[in-house]
């Protein structure tokens, strides 16, 4: 376990807290999701270069592919919400309560 891992784990935790606690805009959630993906990508790449397991070198790329698809879906949903509500405030998402 390298000492850089602590930095990356802190980065992941901060981005995760950013996903869970957001004030008004939905796009900040999506941005923090991208931050999580970035920290995970660097973690995997460090794993590969540190332990010299170059056979799974494709893994960070596959992670990026699926994360890009997810980000696309997230943005599409954001656009759809903006179409109906006009903005992306999260307090507007209250149609389904109770």
């Amino acid at each position, binding site marked *: *376990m390298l000492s850089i*891992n602590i930095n990356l784990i802190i980065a*992941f935790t901060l981005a*995760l807290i950013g*996903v*869970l606690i957001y004030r008004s805009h*939905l796009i900040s*959630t999506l941005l923090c*999701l991208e931050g*999580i*993906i970035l920290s*995970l990508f660097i*973690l*995997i790449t460090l*794993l590969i270069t540190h*332990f010299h397991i170059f056979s*799974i070198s494709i*893994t960070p790329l*596959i*992670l990026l592919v*699926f994360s890009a*698809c*997810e980000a696309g*879906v*997230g943005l599409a*949903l*954001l656009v*759809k*919400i903006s179409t*109906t*509500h006009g903005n992306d405030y999260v307090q507007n*998402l209250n*149609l*389904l*309560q109770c």
Partner: protein
Amino acid sequence: MSPYVTTILTLSLFIGTCLTIFSEHWFTAWMGLEINTLAIIPTTPKNPRATEAATKYFLTQSTASMVMMFAIIYNAWSTNQWTLMQLSDNWASIAMTLALAIKLGLAPFHFWVPEVTQGIPLLTGMILLTWQKLAPTAILFQIAPHLNMKILIMLAILSTLVGGWGGLNQTHLRKILAYSSIAHMGWMIIIVQINPTLTILSLTIYIMATLTMFLTLNLSNVTKIKSLGGLWNKSATTTIIILLTLLSLGGLPPLTGFMPKWLILQELINNNNIMTATLMALSALLNLFFYMRLIYASSLTMFPSTNNSKMQWYDNPTQITMLIPTTTVISSLLLPLTPLFITLS
């Protein structure tokens, strides 16, 4: 939606779950879960409630996927291997348990289940509550020896209590079925370390009963208790099916739903978890209360309605009801086969 799109999305749903269930490498399991999440979001319609439901579903599921990926990578750093059945690192298994709890909708991560189930149509909600539970449960089944029992007990007891109490004040049927799903997932989680076969058995019986409920409700498109009250006029047999299925979901003895609860309580008591078993059994009564309320509304009493409320009228059935008798029989009459299901472990 065009039939090509529907075919691709249905295939992706199927492939995603199969990929996760049959995988040995953590990465392919994660990929299957991602495919499942991405495939179900375009199937929601375009009205604002469905968009909101899809957004909430997407946010919770992708957060869970990211936490799960973190658990996988942490495990790869500390144990240098990616085998699905060996999640040996303690912190990694805790993070994986929490990620799977978010994916399954266990309390205290249950807040998305009622709202998402409410916003989407009945058939999409059916896929959400039945098919999407298969892949995370398969992962839990395989990593069962490495799980932390304290966290499992906390998740399970909270889920059954929240599922019971949360459903008491609901009048929308999809939300009631969502809280029922939360409670049943609690029953499945508690036994996964002691006897993982019972988790799969409980999941199977829950899926059969929930399929019956959703398909029956979809026949006459009822989504509220008030609409249930007029169902006796449209087709009385539907009310009988609802009665049998709801009593089976509640876990009453001569019906199939009693089997998983009975076996789970027996396993818990054999392991000296008597307090846990008592709490689970008592919280199942809460579920039974709102099922009984639905039964009262649909078949046992004449539900009150005003003079000028529209009534559903009987007509020649034009919808295919092929699956409903099969699933009704499975979800009510299979209790004598309990010895067969015990020996399937």
